């Protein structure tokens, strides 16, 4: 297995995540897509660590940090979704349009 395999997997996962974030109407869906993108990044980091700097574990450490931050993000994000749902009675992104010009 080469680095390119893993990077390709990461890219693909990332692209799927982007597609989801762009197209999901449900805010929770968007959050899920974001998680996918995080994981894509993590795969890349772990792969780089494995193939380019096998002596250290810094890449894995950063991945670990990302996991932590992602967990925090999800918690806050879901709490926000909950708030929005209470306030506007919807979870659809197109209804949350306070930025409308």
């Amino acid at each position, binding site marked *: 297995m080469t680095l390119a395999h893993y990077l390709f997997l990461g*890219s693909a996962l990332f692209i799927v995540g982007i597609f989801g974030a762009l197209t999901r*109407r449900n805010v929770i869906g968007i959050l899920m897509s974001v*998680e*996918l993108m995080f994981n894509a990044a993590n795969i890349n980091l772990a792969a780089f660590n494995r*193939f380019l700097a096998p002596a250290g574990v810094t890449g894995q450490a950063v991945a670990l940090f990302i*996991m*932590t931050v992602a*967990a925090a993000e999800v*918690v806050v994000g879901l709490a926000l*979704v909950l708030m929005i749902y209470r306030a506007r009675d919807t979870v659809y992104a197109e209804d949350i349009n306070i930025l409308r010009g």
Partner: protein
Amino acid sequence: MIERLAFYSMAALTLGSAILVVTMRNTVHCALLLGLSLLGVAGVFATLGADFLFASQLLIYVGGIAVLMIFAVMLLGRTADLHLRQVNEAWMAALLVVAITLAGLVRLVKLVAGVTAPSPAAPATRPLGLLMMGDFAVPFELVSLVLLAALLGAVFFSRKEETPPPPATRGPSS
């Protein structure tokens, strides 16, 4: 050979469930498939020899985040939504953009074609622990603070208001 098999199967699991996550109508299914996809990622980590990441992935993502998602979907979901379209009208454009991006990324990935692992993977748990308590002590503590703040923030946001919230404001530049 077994390695290759493991990678491809895990990659297929990951990608397949991921694509389903972003395309299925039923949000509950989505959440469940997300867990599956994350499980796949954990497998990929395993093929990379990142033992601690593998464990963390299982614990945090599969055991934590995915479950949280399922709870959230259950909490907010409505039965009527099951029949609504879950993909907005810009999906064609998004698909185009995504395809272009993928092409660009593939081009980039090709730059590193042929890089193989220089040595077999070693256990990473012990060095990671040393790293966390050593050079990365400060970021480590900071991250824990971030977590704490997120926790508090989540509690703050999600508690029920005693007073009814103010009516939704319109955008300032309407």
